[in-house]
């Protein structure tokens, strides 16, 4: 689609904020239009990266699971991690990538719980990798306008 979707969203957001909102007489309506403009600006920022950040994150979590699996003694968790890490993203619609991401992050929570309770260098190494992955996950989701 041309013009590019993110460019359209950004332009409409700017128009709403700079031209339409000031023309409204009600402060409540101005506030609502301002919120809609901000939503469009966020959607514009997210649009282009939506698929790529999920593909990158899903691959990163699968790598982490492959690395962790040999150290997991709990057979049910080990089996689950093996299955998830053997899968792949084949449907590149954002909704499909998001569903895979949710399954991976739910398993990541269980792995995190498990290694926190385990002693030994393998558990600490995996735990450290999980924290690094979680920090990266927030970098992937950062918004220009967000307060932190």
């Amino acid at each position, binding site marked *: 689609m041309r013009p590019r979707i993110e460019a359209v969203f950004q332009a409409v957001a700017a128009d709403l904020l700079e031209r339409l909102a000031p023309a409204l007489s009600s402060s409540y309506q101005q506030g609502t239009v301002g*919120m809609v403009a901000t939503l469009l600006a966020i959607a514009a920022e997210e649009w282009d990266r939506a698929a790529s950040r999920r593909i990158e994150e899903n691959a990163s979590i699968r790598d982490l699971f492959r690395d962790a699996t040999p150290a997991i003694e709990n057979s049910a968790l080990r089996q689950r991690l093996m299955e998830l890490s053997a899968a792949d993203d084949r449907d590149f619609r954002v909704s499909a990538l998001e569903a895979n*991401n949710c399954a991976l*992050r*739910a398993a990541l*929570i269980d792995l995190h719980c498990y290694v926190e309770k385990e002693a030994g260098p393998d558990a600490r190494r995996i735990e450290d990798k999980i924290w690094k992955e*979680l920090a990266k996950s*927030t970098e992937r989701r*950062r918004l220009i306008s967000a*307060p932190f």
Partner: protein
Amino acid sequence: MATLEELLTDYIKLKLPAAAALRVDQLAQISGGASRQTYRFRLSYEDRGKTVERRLILRRDPTNSLIDTDRRIEFAAYRAFYGTGVPVPEMLWLEEDPAPLGSPFFIGTELRGLQTAPAQMLMEPCASHLAEIAEQKWSILGRIAASGPRELGLVGPMEWVEPADCWKRELGYWEGVLDSDELIPQPIMRAAIRWLRYNPPPPAQKISVVHGDYRTGNFLFDEAGKIHGILDWEMSHLGDPLEDLGWSLNRVWCWAHDDRRGGLVSREQAIAIWERASGLKADPKALRWWELFATVKGQGIWVSSAHSWETGSNKDPILVLSSWWLMNSQDRAALELMGRL
């Protein structure tokens, strides 16, 4: 079908039976937090030959709110602090019967000509007064912490909690919100919750009224930087006074996009003001616990707002905005506090 102005007129006539020529006009919805619909209006009437005109605020429950709260508690908190060193608008009537206006509501006085928006605060002429605003903001919070809930008559309207149980009750509640409302897994928040459970804070040094949402954006200020009213008491409860301090320091309120808390002053300056005003100590380890808890509570609110939008009939864009805009910042704030960012 009667208009809201007409319904309000009928209701207030019952409250002021001696008033003659009673009239409600200039009704307009305003932004007033996400949990209730807020309107301003003018009330005029004749009282013993004198014309009385009052500017009032109506806070009415929506069908689906960002925060599920008890309006009785909010009303009681406003009433308890009115006329004390904690500035709040005067409350007039609480109505829990949905019949008069379609849903429960309360009415109070409007503090006129003032702002709440952080963006306005960061622009001139207010921007020259940020240090004074900070001094008032955390001093008032210190006064809330120093006040006695029994003396304020709030033990009863608000549920009592033992000093050792404050953290368990609050953490349990907000973990429950995440359990019921999260639409996507929250690995950072789940890790934060585990840390909070493994490392509980000491018992509260006293039981205070906790405002529950004390932050820049929830007080009314003028152009000279004077704070005239603390608003949005809908999450107020009894608990550890460090809970409010931790919430006020939350990174998601860094409106100036730098390290200044609430867009005002450094974390250390804010804590020093609060300690001076409250006469209490902000034990560093305990405060760290409450700051991390604030990230869980914040995420609970953003998660439930997204859940409300997706599953409820309320399609207010603020439910989406708070979720889209703040969830990742909240995760980053938790990571920073756990030394993992």
